[in-house]
């Protein structure tokens, strides 16, 4: 890392996120003005976007080569009052809460009090959404059966393909004009609406060009004041780049990165999209520019790497806009989930796509050691082992990156979903793990669903024990069930009820966004919005998948397994006893809890008893949800991931028959219940592979690893583990390399960390099983590891 990058990185890392009112004020000014009067919603949205791009601050940081911030400066975080207008209490919480805090200055509070709150109260999407929901939905939402992604943010989860590297905004304007001209007003009843959408798109394309031009002007201004000739020439170069892109297709490596960055900023300025935006397969997009630069001797590898590093810092400068309430609990992180993909296969012929930039990006990830952007490798059986090995070396550093995705299974998943082979190969993951066809799909995650809560309701005849309210349907008194199947049937009926409830609500919410919050800029860059004359939120995309993310497969499996095993197979206790014990949160039932925890089959150990229940739990969800239609011409699909919601979901679920106490987190992703996989990584992989990943749009497997297990040729063994998981059609795996802090936590809470394996020396052992002295020795040794 050279001096420039070191300095920029330090600035980015050291600056604490703070709230900027600039965007909120500009939006307020715009909607208070008479510009919107008498204009259609898409037009107003486009004109407000234009107003933002013409008036937001221009920020060129000292020394940087890629320019542009979402707010007025690095870590200045804008808000989106049209979606969610924070009240004064929210602002107080934002700056005082323990995690993901944002500095809120007195000025910010004052502006909110005097200007933002009075104007937006009653007009936000959040209020529209909540008031459109019926009582049953509210009851389930408040009970923590599911969360709602759109209550503070907008649908997004979009990823860019290669189109901006081939075309500029001026080209898109021509496409828009062409399609607009061909509207058939006499036979297409939607022609007028489409005309408005085209007009909106055209305004947005111009707005982005204007924004870039303002950066060019600012760079020239700074160049004129600059005394250092090297920096002056860099600023002149920046001015040249920003005058050319994104109006036109990029001509070189720097322009390619800068063009993407302007598009990225535009998407996240237009709306607060879930999972910001994502350049997708950056290695494939950049490689032609890299080759050309090398051949023409206008670029060398060091310069390319430096530009990539500058690009990385831009992502880290943009914390996710502040979330509050349940949305914060389900996704409590500054990370805004831009997930850069490298590797995989080429779209046209499915060949190995690893190139020099793939390796360079891995170097950058390792060296920058930033949490944003996220990075992943797509791994196909066609990719060389040296590529996987290099990724494993970066994983070993303990960053948790890159995560590893199975390209061959992703393609299967997309083909199952009816996508063309080329579109399938063009796709990959974004956000955490969910896949879509890059540049062609509106892939909307609508909320997490709490399977353990649904299990609890099935045990309680639909009554939520924490409130006594009838939240779910009456599915019978579980103490009267005479077979395990009856319990499974009750669970299934509860599950279907809540899926129906959520889908009915989603249908309303989708229409709210289509009607009130179109995204004409996002529509320009998503196929086939221009061809269809439809907005991104209104079925304009070629594919429109909707997800309700299933959470807690490990916990539900273990709870079902406990009942099946003890009540019906071994008959070692009755359902009534189990219910009494769970209602008492196992107080006075410690011995029963011990049996439930330690002498009961658990998911994650490559044992059929529990793992076959995991399959059933997955299948019942798949059958209940997959293929249901949404309002955009697309379908519902299944994915399994948690972000941080497993902690919130756990907090609303009482004690369960697997021995889990009330309020404890539920299992995360497709991981087993915390501490319940005790047979090591191969067993966990076999268990996780019991789920048919090819029928999902993404699953998340987090695996803890001890650094000593990765020393020397341990890295090759890790690579083998990954290859095996992918041979078994696993979708995704990521590794949490154990650091000393985790071991200290395990010393405090051994019961939650029974699965923590450490390499003692010639052998490995469970950390909690070894004596305190040896534990301390291993902690000390881990801290000395110099990866």
């Amino acid at each position, binding site marked *: 890392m050279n001096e420039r990058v070191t300095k920029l990185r330090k600035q980015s890392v050291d600056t604490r996120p703070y709230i900027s009112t600039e965007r909120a004020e500009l939006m307020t000014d715009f909607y208070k003005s008479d510009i919107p009067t008498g204009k259609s919603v898409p037009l107003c949205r486009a004109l407000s976007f234009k107003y933002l791009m013409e008036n937001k601050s221009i920020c060129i940081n000292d020394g940087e080569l890629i320019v542009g911030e979402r707010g007025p400066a690095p870590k200045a975080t804008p808000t989106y009052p049209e979606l969610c207008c924070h009240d004064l209490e929210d602002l107080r919480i934002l700056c005082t809460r323990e995690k993901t805090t944002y500095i809120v200055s007195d000025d910010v509070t004052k502006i909110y009090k005097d200007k933002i709150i009075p104007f937006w109260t009653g007009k936000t999407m959040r209020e529209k959404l909540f008031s459109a929901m019926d009582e049953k939905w509210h009851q389930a939402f408040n009970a923590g059966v599911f969360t709602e992604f759109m209550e503070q943010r907008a649908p997004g989860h979009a990823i860019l393909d290669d189109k901006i590297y081939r075309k500029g905004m001026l080209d898109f304007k021509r496409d828009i004009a062409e399609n607009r001209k061909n509207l058939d007003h006499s036979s297409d009843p939607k022609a007028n609406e489409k005309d408005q959408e085209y007009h909106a798109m055209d305004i947005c394309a111009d707005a982005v060009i204007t924004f870039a031009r303002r950066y060019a002007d600012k760079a020239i201004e700074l160049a004129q004041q600059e005394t250092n000739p090297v920096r002056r020439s860099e600023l002149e170069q920046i001015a040249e780049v920003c005058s050319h892109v994104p109006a036109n297709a990029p001509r070189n490596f720097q322009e390619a990165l800068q063009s993407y960055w302007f598009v990225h900023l535009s998407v996240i300025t237009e709306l607060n999209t879930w999972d910001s935006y994502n350049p997708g397969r950056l290695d494939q997009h950049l490689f032609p520019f890299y080759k050309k630069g090398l051949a023409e001797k206008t670029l060398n590898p060091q310069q390319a790497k430096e530009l990539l590093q500058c690009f990385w810092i831009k992502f880290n400068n943009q914390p996710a806009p502040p979330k509050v309430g349940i949305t914060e609990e389900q996704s409590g992180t500054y990370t805004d989930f831009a997930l850069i993909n490298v590797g995989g296969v080429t779209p046209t012929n499915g060949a190995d796509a690893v190139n020099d930039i793939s390796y360079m990006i891995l170097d950058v990830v390792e060296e920058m050691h930033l949490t944003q952007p996220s990075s992943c490798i797509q791994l196909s059986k066609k990719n060389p082992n040296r590529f996987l090995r290099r990724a494993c070396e970066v994983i070993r550093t303990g960053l948790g990156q890159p995560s590893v995705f199975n390209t061959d299974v992703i393609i299967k998943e997309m083909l199952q979903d009816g996508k063309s082979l080329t579109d399938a190969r063009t796709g990959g993951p974004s956000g955490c793990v969910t896949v879509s066809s890059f540049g062609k799909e509106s892939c909307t995650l609508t909320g997490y669903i709490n399977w353990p809560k649904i299990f609890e309701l099935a045990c309680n005849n639909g009554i939520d024990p924490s409130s006594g309210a009838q939240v779910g349907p009456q599915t019978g008194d579980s103490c009267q069930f005479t077979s395990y199947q009856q319990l499974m049937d009750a669970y299934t009926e509860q599950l279907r009820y809540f899926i129906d409830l959520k889908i009915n609500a989603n249908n309303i919410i989708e229409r709210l966004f289509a009607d009130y919050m179109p995204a004409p800029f996002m529509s320009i860059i998503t196929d086939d919005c221009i061809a269809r004359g439809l907005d991104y939120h209104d079925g304009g995309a070629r594919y429109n998948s909707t997800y309700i993310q299933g959470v807690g497969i490990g916990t539900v499996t273990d709870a079902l397994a406990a009942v099946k095993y003890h009540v019906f197979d071994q008959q070692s206790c009755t359902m009534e006893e189990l219910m009494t014990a769970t209602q008492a949160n196992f107080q006075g039932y410690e*011995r029963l809890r011990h049996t439930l925890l330690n002498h009961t089959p658990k998911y994650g150990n*490559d044992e059929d008893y529990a793992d076959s229940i995991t399959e059933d739990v997955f299948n019942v969800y798949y059958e209940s949800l997959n293929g249901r239609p949404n309002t955009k011409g697309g379908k519902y699909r299944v994915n399994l991931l948690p972000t941080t919601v497993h902690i919130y979901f756990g907090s609303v679920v009482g004690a369960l028959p697997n021995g889990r106490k009330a309020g404890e987190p539920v299992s995360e992703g497709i991981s087993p219940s915390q501490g319940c996989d005790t047979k090591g990584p*191969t067993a966990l992989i076999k268990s996780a592979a019991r789920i048919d990943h090819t029928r999902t749009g993404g699953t998340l497997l987090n695996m803890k690893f001890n650094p000593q297990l990765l020393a020397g040729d341990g890295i090759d063994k890790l690579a083998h583990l990954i*290859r095996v998981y992918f041979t078994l059609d696993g979708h995704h795996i990521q590794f949490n390399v154990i650091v000393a802090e985790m071991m200290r936590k395990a010393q405090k809470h051994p019961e939650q960390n029974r699965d923590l394996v450490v390499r*003692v*020396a*010639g052998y490995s052992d469970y950390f909690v099983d070894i004596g305190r002295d040896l534990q301390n020795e291993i902690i000390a040794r881990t801290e000395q590891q110099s990866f």
Partner: protein
Amino acid sequence: MSDILNIPDSKPASSVPRARQSELQTTGFVFDIKKYAIHDGPGIRTTVFFKGCPLYCKWCQNPESWKRHPELGFRTSRCISCGLCVEACTHHAITSIQGQPVTDANKCNLCGQCVDACMAGAREIIGRQITVSEVIAEVEKDVVFYDQSGGGVTFSGGEPMMQPEFLLALLNQCQVQQIHTAVDTSCYAEPDVVECISKRTDLFLCDLKHMDSNMHERFTGVGNNLILDNIKLLSEAGKEIIIRIPIIPGFNDDQANIEATGKFAASLPRLSSIDILPYNRGGKEKSSRLSPGTILMQTDTPDEKKMNSIAQALKNHGFEVNIGG
């Protein structure tokens, strides 16, 4: 013994022997089956730990392997003095003395009721009798990992050759299932047993603790003549061998012993590599869980510099040397 020695020579690779039903029910004593063993031979492996060992090495990492039969393990650090074990024991073998449960070995028949009752997880039965088919079922689960990584199964211990019928039956089954086998051994066994086992084994991990027989006897309870002879026997038979030396400071890390070890290794007609394993204190910790009588020495873990210099000394004899194995 005699019947197991009359096994036919390995058949050509083209004809796969069928599983012998009688062998599947053969039983042995095992105290652990560990998956994802990555330091016991090539690739990703499953290691089956046999219970029972003819050696009593004072630095032993697995003292729970010494006794052939199952035994009760107890972790004082976990015990919460709840007294449930005392209540649970129908043989009245456990009494509470100053809040600590004390087990009378003469009355205890290892029924395991106290283990089930112990909520703190302080009690365990170490070792169990298990059939070949049960072991193979567990080993079979990870075939896909062996295939990917060039791994297989390692029989370790304890001393696997102390249970020759069981070991041979397991090796036969692995051959049927085309699973690569390694035997991790002290080489302290009758030569005819070693020879018979060698015919079914792909790789031997031979421990070599000291070249001086007197020293060997002082620290392990037995001399090394038989061990050295068996290593020679295996090497002369053309078996693939890795020699593994635990480096115990003050016992075998002196220059003279390392030189002698290097010379012995150089005299072998065939040897793949040498692994040197630094001593660690894990055994001391484990021995505290066992019944009194298992007394282990405690010394320092050799530092990286020491390990490197030993590795270099052995490399000078022309071997590939791995630290850690």
